[in-house]
């Protein structure tokens, strides 16, 4: 009884208040409600658009071949099978029969790890140097960093290719062994490039780290200097601990982009089996794979081809998505930070 009274009183008060401010509160509440509904619809639609391919890929990946041609099946497979995954595993590690399980994936993993560690390391040093020290020609060198972001690697890839085909520094190797080294089959060239900040998107990482280090007040460094801290100590003990999130995000970006990279991989890792190259050449491998038992060449249907490619993509992105789920904050925050000062 009492609660009914109070609620009635509340309602009356509400009404009179609405009358007094001539519906302002009510109007704004309605407007807010409409806006949030529209916003939710728009965001849901767009998010769905981003997620949908992944979901449909998962659905398609589990279908048997007959399910593919059944037009009544759209998303959920009728006959669930994991056979397709086995085929893709075989396809992507085609060269080595003795170790058929994801040979190329392991190669990609360690190459990406090594490369991204090297890139994060060298870019941290260079970014730190650009941010905290002044030296002659600094603007010029920073201009070079920006130029590096802009120049497409394709412009120099031919020359790099030729260079590493006959690698030589000032004729040292020719003098030692009689002919220049052919480094195309090894991973050394690309490791060298990552170590010297010339790898994939390194300009961007230098930029990010420089922006971060610029934000630290000068007095921190000065205090350390007055207390007798050496340059290396200042970097390792004072600067780096706070910079870990930014460095981590550079590392993660580098790892992810290296993982999916095709351009450098195709040019510099000819000797080893990499997942991205395998994925891009999967089309041509399929006919051979399916016909390897019989001596007739098999025409693989387009739907089947698409399904297998989709599985390949899925295998490629699943580790990345897991990584992203756990490190999402690091990814987004550091870009936001470096963006705010650009």
């Amino acid at each position: 009884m009492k609660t009914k009274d109070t609620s009635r009183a509340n309602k009356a008060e509400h009404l009179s208040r609405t009358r007094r401010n001539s519906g302002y509160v009510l109007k704004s509440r309605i407007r807010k409600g409409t806006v949030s509904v529209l916003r939710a619809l728009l965001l849901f639609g767009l998010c769905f658009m981003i997620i949908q391919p992944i979901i449909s890929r998962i659905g398609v990946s589990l279908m048997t071949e007959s399910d593919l041609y059944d037009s009544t099946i759209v998303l959920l497979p009728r006959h669930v099978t994991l056979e397709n995954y086995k085929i893709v595993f075989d396809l992507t590690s085609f060269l080595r029969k003795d170790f058929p399980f994801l040979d190329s994936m392991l190669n990609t993993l360690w190459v990406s790890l090594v490369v991204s560690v090297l890139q994060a390391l060298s870019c941290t040093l260079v970014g730190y140097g650009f941010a905290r020290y002044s030296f002659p020609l600094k603007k010029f060198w920073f201009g070079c960093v920006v130029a590096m972001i802009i120049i497409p690697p394709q412009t120099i890839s031919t020359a790099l290719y030729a260079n590493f085909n006959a690698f030589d520094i000032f004729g040292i190797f020719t003098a030692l062994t009689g002919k220049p080294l052919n480094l195309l089959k090894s991973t050394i060239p690309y490791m060298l490039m990552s170590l010297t900040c010339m790898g994939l998107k390194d300009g961007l990482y230098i930029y990010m780290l420089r922006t971060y280090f610029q934000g630290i007040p000068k007095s921190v460094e000065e205090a350390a200097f007055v207390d007798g801290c050496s340059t290396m100590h200042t970097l390792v003990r004072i600067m780096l601990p706070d910079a870990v999130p930014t460095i981590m995000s550079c590392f993660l970006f580098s790892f992810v982009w290296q993982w999916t990279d095709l351009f450098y991989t195709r040019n510099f890792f000819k000797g080893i089996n990499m997942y991205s190259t395998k994925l891009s050449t999967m089309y041509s491998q399929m006919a051979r794979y399916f016909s390897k038992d019989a001596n007739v060449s098999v025409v693989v249907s387009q739907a089947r081809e698409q399904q297998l490619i989709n599985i390949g993509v899925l295998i490629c992105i699943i580790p990345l998505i897991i990584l992203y789920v756990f490190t999402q904050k690091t990814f987004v925050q550091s870009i936001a930070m470096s963006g705010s000062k650009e």
Partner: protein
Amino acid sequence: MAKNLSPDRWSLKEGVGAFIPWMGSYKTMRARNARTGVLFILPFIIGFCLFMVVPLIESIQFSLNDVTLVPGEGYSLSWNSFYNYRYAFTIDATFTQYLIDESGKMVINTIATLVMSFVLAVILNQNFKGRTLARAIFFLPVILSSGVLAGIESQSQTFNMLSAMSEEAANASGINISASLQSLLSISGVGSGIFDIIFDMIDAIYDIVMASGIQIIVFLSGLSAISPSLYEAADVEGCTAWEAFWKITFPMLSPLLLVNTIYTIIDFFMKNSNTVMEHINTLQNNSQYGQAAAQSWIYFAVALAFIGISSFIISKGVSSSEN
């Protein structure tokens, strides 16, 4: 003393001392600091000279010469009086076609991406439930559309026979909204050229959203840097949300517009799925190194021209809106 006060001016002696350890002056603290700084960026300097400058020069040479790779010894060059450039423009049947196509696409895509990421950033900056999740999802394309994945997605014409199938089904039952709207508008004879572009954009909305991950984050960071008191003051003065958007949000974000434009253009030009890139790669795989180099230089020049033009326009626009 006065010299020491201006940190960006260096005497020749100090300059030499910073780069060459055994020469010049390094007695002052400033000079020693400069040397430490140079040491820090030394990896970059070495890398830039070895793996950027040298290949760049060689690549210019390649583009002007006939190149043949000699196994085990490098390559040999012979001058062919701009044949490679003439080849690109007059003999190669597809290159100019691809170049023009891609440039046109680039202009439309860049504008669409910028508008899209701007709107999305404004929306994602508001307070609502599930904001973190939405942000995380919109950033996902940065990972999912990089490198080989982007190429594969575009090359699989039926990226998703599923979507094709559902589209067919929709066509059959007549509920393909964009197509029916398009036909309706073209029947009624409203300027079809512009509508074609807009409908192309709508059909390409997936690509646009996939390409705007980083841009959204950059705009978002700019938005979060705007102090809320500005909006409060505007609200008190009777400013509507629409006015506040054009008078506060837009001018405050316009510096980031330049960054995002450049990023978008570069991103678009460097995609593996780009037909020009594919064409150049094919040439290279056919050992037509000279032609490949020439074409990539032409391509780079076009990209640079676009970056120059757009940054000129935007910086003009930004400064005029500030005045």
